[in-house]
């Protein structure tokens, strides 16, 4: 049953233009485009464009998949009555949830490999198997954290329109305050304040550190871990509270 559900979940993802554009098309295109503009620049920690933005765009794809194809998709199924119809069927909820999680991991892993491949072809990114595997392991951990946060956030929505507006809005917020486009350090102070409370900013920076084998447990790292854990725990509380309401 899980295999059948997963098969159709992946088919449905491939047919949803909205998900495809925001998760598989926009991030790689932006990665290439920005590289043409800022490819020669040097970033914080002496990182080159490819060292800074290859992991960033992998995280951006992950964000898009986890928040749109996983979280927003749940609201769509809830608001259109699909969730209710499936709920009446003799399929365990954990099967549906597990399928959604595996689907997200497959697609985000595809994004991981895609951005990496573009980096190698376009920007001469070197392939280091150990770094690649360590980064992938950490990436899966971040995937799990983001899936929980996404599930909690979208469990608050019953109406598709408000979920859509919210999704478009947070995509913009994450793009500009997550260090995915222009460096936050070059932006106005209020943007930097928002960035510091944006968990995606911290997820991004932790992953950049791991990707470049630069992870050291200093104040910045602990702050990032702290913000992510805070949001993660809040998300678990929201999920538990919502379950109790049912």
């Amino acid at each position, binding site marked *: *049953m899980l295999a*059948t*559900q997963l098969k*159709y979940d992946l*088919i*449905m993802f491939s*047919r*949803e233009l909205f998900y495809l554009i925001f998760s598989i098309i926009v991030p790689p295109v932006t990665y290439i485009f920005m590289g043409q503009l800022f490819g020669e620049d040097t970033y914080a920690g002496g990182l080159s464009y490819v060292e800074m933005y290859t992991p960033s765009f992998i995280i951006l794809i992950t964000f898009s998949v986890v928040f749109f194809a996983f979280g927003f998709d749940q609201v769509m*199924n809830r608001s*259109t*009555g*699909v969730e*209710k*119809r*499936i*709920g*009446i*069927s*003799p*399929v*365990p909820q954990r099967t549906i949830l597990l399928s959604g999680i595996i689907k997200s991991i497959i697609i985000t892993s595809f994004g991981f490999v895609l951005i990496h491949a573009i980096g190698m072809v376009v920007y001469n990114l070197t392939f280091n198997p150990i770094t690649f595997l360590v980064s992938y392991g950490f990436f899966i951990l971040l995937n799990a954290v983001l899936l929980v946060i996404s599930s909690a956030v979208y469990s608050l929505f019953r109406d598709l329109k408000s979920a859509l507006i919210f999704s478009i809005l947070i995509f913009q917020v994450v793009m500009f305050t997550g260090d995915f486009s222009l460096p936050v350090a070059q932006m106005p102070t209020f943007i930097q304040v928002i960035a510091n409370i944006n968990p995606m900013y911290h997820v991004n920076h932790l992953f950049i550190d791991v990707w470049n084998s630069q992870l050291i447990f200093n104040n910045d790292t602990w702050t990032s871990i702290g913000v992510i854990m805070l949001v993660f725990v809040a998300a678990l509380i929201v999920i538990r509270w919502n379950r109790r309401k049912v």
Partner: protein
Amino acid sequence: MKIIDVKGLEKSYGNLQVLKGLDFETNAGEIIGVIGMNGAGKSTFLEILMTIKDYDRGDVTIFGHNLKGISMDQLISLRKDISVVLQPTQFYKSLKVEELLRLFKAYYQSDIEIGQIIDDFQLEQHRKSFFEKLSGGWKQKVSLAIAFLSEPKLIILDEPTTGLDPHMRNVLWSYIVDYNQKKGGTVILTTHYMDEIELYCDKVMLIDNGVNKIFEKTEDILSLGYRSINDFYLSKV
């Protein structure tokens, strides 16, 4: 054989009590129409029977299982014998009809061949159509096909023919009656079309003010002197 037994069912939404002690029972093979004004509690009652809505007080026993305190595994097992058609029925919009049938075949672990269901419900012309592109009538036809895929002992239909033209209503009813006669399955439905109650239902339950005001055989109601079930309904609400 009694398959559903409901006693003193109560359900409130906040301060609004929708069901106030409803009693109901049905035997295998019966077709029962549940009628009542909008907001009378018909859908709430059906959703409790569908096992997707909790209730406050009373006893609901389906196939011998009391729903209070039932485990999730028992509930999933129970749902294998129950199928539903909702109004409006929605399925994954980006799946095609045949794909939906295959998905639900997996859910219900049904042995029925997809080709047979497509033949039985004459779905061939739409097997490659996306569900969301179908007309209302075809959507309901596909919903019925999915509902019958599991050969359920009980099928619950919430206004299955609302908004359909007379031809499509007739087509859907022919499937429902056929299922009832050949498989001996029990059908519980709500509808606002009183002619359907008169033509097809063995019993009628009128829900009014949260209780079953009338629960009688259709022929017994008509023998009281009402010209039609519609006349009976209008005289009672």
